[in-house]
């Protein structure tokens, strides 16, 4: 074609990025890779292929790890960890800085290799993935530098097992490795089997950076290798991937004491109000669902458009789709590249073909006939009951539905098991700022979508997982409070010692929805002092009582919207009322425990209430310093309904230490009182009754923890479960929590020093981080 013909057609023509350097790098390994363990590559072993999904070409053979490889990697990491932590924050900061610099120096090589391996457009690898990777290492170099000064009360977890997905291979590596290393941990990372290559290049970079041996170890292979990492002798598992696998990891790690963070799937809503800049909202969808071929956990894949503009909006959207360019990911002029693997292509195809509802619009553009390409697709006119509105497709397929009012938009948006991200478009600041906090999502973007930064926490709620990556909040995933833990003493049941009591019988019931309620099964349990003397009876709570209590707690959701000031007032009021009866409670504690520290415990309880009240209006969240014109608010929100099994070590202080901060933050609680010494809790009903606590905010059950905990842990409408029971329930609770992937905080059989437990630590468990991105501009 002559220049003159091109002058007539005004086509773009090819704009290929060269893959020469990336191919040469692969050749330098003869396209065969071993694992990276203890600072060196192992000899390649039995291998699987890593292919370019756009062409099917073999890129390299990568070794499938065996159990001994995982052992060796964990061993190397364990060996290196002490020294790495002892190097100190500033020492580690220099290493992270060196990594950031090298990532920058080799930016083009990383970008091209990522595109070859994943099929994502070179524009995205070059302009989004790799710059964010660099930024993450720079940011966390800073965190390492500041750790001792800013986080004096925490220490590294130890060895972290990290399992990452194939959609953003190097970026997910960065999100996992940078904070782990910054905080003094060492890592064993398993990249996805489809996309291991940039992780291996990163391994080589760590050698250039002079990172000590064993600090970063990389083992490759399929899901079975992931399972080996999960079961290995590691202190933490960080996983990003599907909800199904995340749930399995939760079950496998239950009771192991391993810290766990999960960043899982989503079906994130993308809400367009009638006063939005519609063209910009359409363009936002390109970044939401056609970014990385829609293979994005937080993709805005569920379009909700206000009815009054729905027709107009969909027309604009279809027209925009017809201008997308799909094809060779290495072409600099491509919007949509290849899906990662034929397996994924088949899955997307099957899901879309299996749907008969709504209207399908396939982008009117030419799609390559070979390679893993799937055309941008819109399925409009669906309702929440259609399975494609609920199931994650993980491909370039957008589904849509309309709404009438802001309330309905929220209801539709939250009608999902997931809760990763949400996007909303409106030019009305009142509307936008009202809706954003109502969306069940860890990240909300206002008039933008898929914005990421190392300074802004990212992560989900509900079945999108738990834990945050990025910002100060993300560091809690790689640290733990400094403390020495003691095994919990098992308490022998006291011998029966029947001595008649002279006072009027005062058998407490259960406390549900602001009222005392008889246990559903009509049974009571005796409460005895250590000498075996009967002190009274409590109701034997069971399954149905848990159900009723959770229902009451859910019904009290208005508590979350009260002001911190009001919650503080109520907590102070509780302290007042408890103080008035301090001697009585002290005597009760002494009678139950046979000790003499009751008065001191009550004093600690008053302090807990005061401290929680003090914090109620001071857990402010922050604005994250993200590189846009706008703000990213890192907000602290209540977790929701928290079930807490209270300890025996401090019958009243334990309960108070869990309840007070939880309700201070706006949560509602279902507490299972100390099983051995429940009477201080039942006495406390009257304090609650007289302190203006709204019904349902605090619910207290008594009975056997082994009866109550499993129901509470499995309950799908409970958002978190905590356990400090003397009964060995941690494993069972964590296993049952996998049902809706609720957050857990369990004692793993260790005793807690309730008098010295830091309020900050409890508040972390009692809050959820929500990041709201608000770009602005006149």
């Amino acid at each position: 074609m002559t220049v003159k013909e091109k002058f007539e057609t005004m086509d773009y023509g090819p704009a290929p990025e060269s893959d020469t350097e990336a191919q040469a790098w692969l050749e330098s390994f003869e396209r065969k890779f071993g694992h990276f363990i203890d600072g060196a590559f192992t000899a390649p072993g039995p291998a699987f292929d890593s292919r370019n999904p756009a062409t099917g070409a073999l890129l390299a053979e990568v070794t499938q790890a065996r159990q001994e490889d995982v052992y060796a990697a964990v061993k190397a990491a364990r060996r290196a960890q002490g020294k790495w932590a002892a190097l100190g924050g500033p020492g580690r900061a220099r290493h992270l800085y060196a990594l950031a610099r090298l990532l920058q120096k080799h930016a083009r090589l990383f970008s091209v290799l990522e595109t070859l391996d994943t099929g994502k457009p070179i524009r995205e690898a070059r302009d989004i993935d790799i710059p964010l990777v660099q930024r993450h290492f720079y940011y966390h170099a800073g965190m390492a530098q500041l750790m001792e000064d800013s986080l004096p009360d925490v220490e590294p977890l130890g060895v972290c097992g990290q399992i990452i997905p194939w959609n953003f291979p190097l970026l997910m590596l960065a999100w996992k490795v940078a904070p782990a290393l910054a905080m003094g941990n060492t890592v064993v990372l398993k990249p996805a089997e489809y996309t291991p290559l940039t992780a291996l290049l990163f391994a080589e970079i760590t050698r250039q950076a002079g990172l000590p041996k064993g600090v970063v170890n990389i083992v490759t292979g399929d899901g079975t290798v992931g399972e080996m990492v999960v079961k290995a002798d590691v202190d933490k598992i960080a996983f990003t991937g599907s909800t199904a696998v995340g749930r399995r990891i939760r079950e496998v790690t239950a009771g192991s004491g391993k810290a766990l963070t999960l960043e899982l799937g989503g079906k994130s809503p993308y809400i367009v109000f009638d006063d939005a800049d519609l063209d910009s909202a359409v363009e936002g969808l390109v970044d939401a669902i056609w970014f990385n071929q829609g293979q994005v956990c937080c993709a805005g894949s569920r379009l909700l458009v206000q009815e009054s503009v729905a027709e107009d909006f969909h027309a604009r959207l279809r027209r925009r789709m017809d201008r997308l360019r799909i094809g060779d990911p290495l072409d600099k002029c491509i919007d949509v590249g290849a899906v990662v693997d034929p397996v994924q292509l088949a899955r997307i195809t099957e899901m879309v073909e299996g749907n008969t509802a709504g209207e399908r619009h396939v982008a009117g553009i030419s799609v390559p006939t070979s390679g893993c390409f799937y055309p941008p697709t819109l399925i409009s006119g669906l309702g929440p009951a259609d399975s494609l509105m609920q199931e994650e497709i993980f491909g370039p397929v957008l589904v849509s539905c309309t709404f009438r009012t802001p309330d309905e938009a929220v209801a539709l948006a939250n009608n999902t098991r997931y809760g990763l991200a949400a996007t909303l478009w409106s030019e009305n600041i009142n509307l936008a700022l009202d809706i954003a906090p109502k969306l069940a999502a860890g990240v909300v973007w206002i008039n933008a979508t898929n914005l990421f930064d190392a300074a802004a926490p990212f992560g989900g709620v509900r079945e999108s997982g738990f834990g945050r990556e990025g910002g100060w909040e993300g560091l809690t995933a790689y640290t733990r409070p400094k403390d020495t833990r003691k095994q919990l003493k098992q308490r022998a049941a006291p011998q029966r010692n029947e001595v008649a009591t002279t006072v009027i019988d005062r058998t407490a019931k259960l406390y549900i929805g602001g009222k005392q309620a008889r246990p559903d099964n009509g049974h009571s349990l005796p409460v005895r002092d250590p000498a075996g003397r009967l002190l009274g009876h409590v109701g034997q709570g069971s399954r149905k009582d848990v159900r009723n209590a959770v229902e009451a707690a859910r019904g009290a959701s208005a508590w979350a919207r009260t002001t911190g000031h009001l919650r503080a007032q109520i907590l102070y009021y509780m302290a007042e009322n408890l103080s008035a009866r301090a001697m009585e409670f002290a005597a009760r504690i002494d009678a139950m425990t046979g000790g003499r520290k009751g008065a001191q415990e009550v004093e600690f309880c008053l302090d807990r209430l005061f401290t929680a009240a003090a914090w109620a209006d001071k857990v402010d969240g922050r604005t994250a310093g993200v590189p846009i014109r706008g703000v990213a608010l890192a907000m602290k929100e209540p977790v929701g309904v928290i079930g807490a099994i209270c300890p025996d070590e401090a019958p009243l202080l334990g309960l108070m230490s869990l309840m007070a901060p939880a309700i201070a933050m706006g949560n509602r609680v279902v507490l299972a009182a100390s099983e051995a010494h429940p009477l201080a809790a039942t006495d406390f009903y009257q304090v609650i009754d007289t302190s203006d606590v709204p019904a349902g905010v605090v619910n207290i059950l008594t009975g056997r923890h082994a009866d109550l905990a499993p129901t509470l842990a499995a309950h799908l409408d409970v958002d978190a479960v905590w356990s400090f029971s003397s009964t060995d329930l941690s494993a069972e609770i964590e296993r049952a929590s996998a049902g809706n992937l609720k957050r857990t905080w369990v004692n793993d059989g260790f005793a807690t020093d309730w008098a010295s437990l830091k309020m900050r630590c409890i508040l972390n468990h009692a809050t959820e981080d929500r990041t709201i991105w608000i770009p602005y501009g006149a």
Partner: protein
Amino acid sequence: MTRETRLSPMQLPQVTEPRNPGMELDMGWVRRAQANSSAIERRVATLPGRRSVKKDHQAAWLLRAITCIDLTTLAGDDTTERVRRLCAKGRHPVRADLLQALGFDRLSVAAICVYHDMVAPAVAALTGSGIPVAAVSTGFPAGLSPFHLRVAEIGESVQAGANEIDIVISRRHVLSGDWQALYDEMRAFRAACGEAHVKAILATGELGTLRNVARASLVCMMAGADFIKTSTGKESVNATLPVSLVMIRAIREYHERTGYRVGYKPAGGISKAKDALVYLSLIKEELGDRWLRPDLFRFGASSLLGDIERQLEHHVTGAYSAAHRHALG
């Protein structure tokens, strides 16, 4: 609908579209217009990374850009001779040997753009070239002279032979929200132009917000503008990509609702070949290929041509070029 029949050089299908007759002022539509600055800035900031034109295609695009240039001189010291030189450059914007190497025998710019007093010399200098003369008018650049004089100025320029009139709107109508006044003014200007085409200069750098740009664009189109144009080149901020995106989205919506294609002219501050390519890809993406022709797209520029010439020589020879190797305008 009228169809222009003016003769044009081969590469310049100057006017093939029915002219936009305008419509009643639709205030509901005007008021609904929204423009989210951050989102618009993100779109234009990522565009150069999303679209790239290389090698022969790039040369073709640069040649296309030349055919869309309104080669402009709007200086107080303009003289007949100066304008004559500019017109000569407009007839032969690219060195003949380069043009030949690229497979073209002739090529010209879209129009020569001058003040009223320079219209007659320009028309004379362009005789037989088919290149139209555009006159800036209506008290350009501030547009604050008496209204009847502004209208009369249009008539004088048309009479002097100007085929295109670049009018300036009263920014105060936008800033005070008097859309009816803006509409009426534009209607009057359009009427005064007669057969000459009218480009409405919004002076976007003085309109305060992108939303005002969107609304002013719609009002001017409703009042019958053939083109909407960003700037006089005399404001402190002239053509920008965000402003362009807002204006061309308005053009697209107007076309979808009415069926009429209105042209777009960014002016001021576009001086690099690379920038021209980004503008062309923005037009291609948001409006479509039909707008990549001089009857619907113009660059208001004076120094852009020089940079394009140097890039073309580099394309032909492989060696980077120098300004003095290309004829002055």
